[in-house]
């Protein structure tokens, strides 16, 4: 079965073709980062306007590049939520209508299911059941995954998502949007032991997270220290030290909860997905954790950690193979709990 995947939930237009026999046939992506950068964050209306300009040309280019004509498609999958409603509707309307015109089934995919299954696009495929840590700009969730559509949420963030905490902290350290990767880069120059940040909610049982306090802690640390420093070099070093301590705190907190989740469930497979799973410090920490527990960690390849069409094509293909398909409604929901997918 060959499936076209369309992702437009936020600021990337992602298109891909996945084939259940041959694997990923091709994928392409347009990122709007430059468009939103000047505004310091994603502007929903501008995102929607850009998606509708790009989407069909991107599909056309991919079909040519992958030598896979429309006539060879057996289904179309699109991200129906959660995300920016206007942006979602662009991908949903084009994808659903294209499927109707081609007389093939369409399926609405949950964005986080896409992220969650993204490691399945790699050679070393995790078997069900496993623990999944989803860490992106909008979500931080730990779940037990027993199969396609069988998602049991074990814990989630009560306030900011991990990626959001990275981005907000980056902003107060005066790093350019989107700050997460920039903060991780700056943290490489940071020194161990200069600052000690708390590990929120690790001193009590449970698998929920809270990251908004860390951002405040970073702000206070910055305000208390920055004014006392006079050279640019010292200021920069200080910011790097704060970035380092902040990242350590997020990473340790995530690792502590992953360890708990693995131990509570007795599972030995951990899947890590979402934009923050690109973070090198997190990967190292979880690798060490897994080694200590004799468990395996699985990640998507770097480019599929953030939003992309490949994960949607893959998830949609699995849904279609399982016999699902939608009616003619064009589905888009800003909010959509994963356990209802």
């Amino acid at each position, binding site marked *: 079965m060959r499936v076209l995947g369309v992702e437009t939930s936020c600021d990337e237009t992602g298109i891909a073709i996945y084939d259940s026999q041959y694997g990923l046939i091709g994928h392409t992506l347009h990122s709007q980062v430059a468009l939103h950068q000047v505004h310091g964050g994603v*502007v929903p209306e501008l995102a929607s306007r850009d998606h509708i300009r790009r989407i069909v040309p991107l599909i056309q280019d991919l079909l040519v590049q992958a030598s896979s004509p429309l006539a060879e498609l057996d289904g179309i999958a699109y991200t129906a939520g959660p995300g920016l409603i206007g942006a979602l509707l662009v991908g949903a309307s*084009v994808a659903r*209508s*294209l499927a109707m015109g*081609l007389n093939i089934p369409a399926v609405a995919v949950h964005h986080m299911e896409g992220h969650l299954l993204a490691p399945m696009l790699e050679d070393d495929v995790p078997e069900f059941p496993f623990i999944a840590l989803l860490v992106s700009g909008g979500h931080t969730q730990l779940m037990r995954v027993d199969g396609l559509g069988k998602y049991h949420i074990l814990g989630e963030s009560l306030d900011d998502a991990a990626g959001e905490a990275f981005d907000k902290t980056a902003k107060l350290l005066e790093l350019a949007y989107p700050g997460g990767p920039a903060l991780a880069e700056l943290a490489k120059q940071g020194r161990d032991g200069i600052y000690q940040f708390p590990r929120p909610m690790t001193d009590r049982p449970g698998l929920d997270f809270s990251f908004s306090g860390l951002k405040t802690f970073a702000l206070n640390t910055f305000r208390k220290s920055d004014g006392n420093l006079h050279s640019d070099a010292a200021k920069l070093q200080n910011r790097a030290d704060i970035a380092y301590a902040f990242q350590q705190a997020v990473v340790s907190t995530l690792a502590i909860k992953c360890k708990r989740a693995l131990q509570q469930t007795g599972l030995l497979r951990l899947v890590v997905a979402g934009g923050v799973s690109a973070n090198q410090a997190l990967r190292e920490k979880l690798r060490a954790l897994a080694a200590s527990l004799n468990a395996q960690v699985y990640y998507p390849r770097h480019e599929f950690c953030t939003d992309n069409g490949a994960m949607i094509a893959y998830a949609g293909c699995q849904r279609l193979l399982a016999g699902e398909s939608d009616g003619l409604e064009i589905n888009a929901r800003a909010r959509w709990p994963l356990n209802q997918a």
Partner: protein
Amino acid sequence: MKILAFDTSMQACSAALCFDDECYEKYTLAPRQHNQLILPMIEALLTQANCQLKDLDAIAFANGPGSFTGVRLATGVAQGLAFAAQLPLLPISTLAALAQGAWRLHAARNVAVAVDARMQAVYWGQYQLNQEELMRLSEPELICAIDALPVFCDTNVWVGVGDAWANPQVVSQVSDVQNLTAFYPDSYPHARDIVELAKAEFAAGRALECAQAQPNYLREYTVKA
């Protein structure tokens, strides 16, 4: 010729499938339900007319101005269908569709279309009937602050169409124009009127390849600081 047309740009949702001598149309007032309704409507028309997309000559749609989301929905649907069936697209002004409807329903020859654009502004277009009984712009469409609406003093009899005419401020702004004789603020575009306008566009060779047909928002989007 065979044309499918539809509109999701305002509170109504409509689709029409027209051949040279027959026209099937569906129209319903359905705020915020366009995404649920539009494809089933189109499917029902195709079934009713015993016709397939690939039998069509072109697809037309109202590409704005109107609700940003609604206009993009129509554009996305049009692009998806046209891409699949390899058909050309004919984007038609929402305001022109309203004016054309005023001719069909009210025999209006000169139509001042005013659609609420929020933030004390309206989408404004002055349309006049030509010899082919098609509505044509006498001045370019614009987005205009209510207190800066153009005063159009001429001797013709004008009819006001579009929801902005429900706003007394809009009416009073042009009240000195004695020959504005009737208002139809409850009008929304009907897909069959889009078909009439689209036929002429098609004949004039103005059909577009699917990715080229884009929304016409009229309003630039500016980010508030």
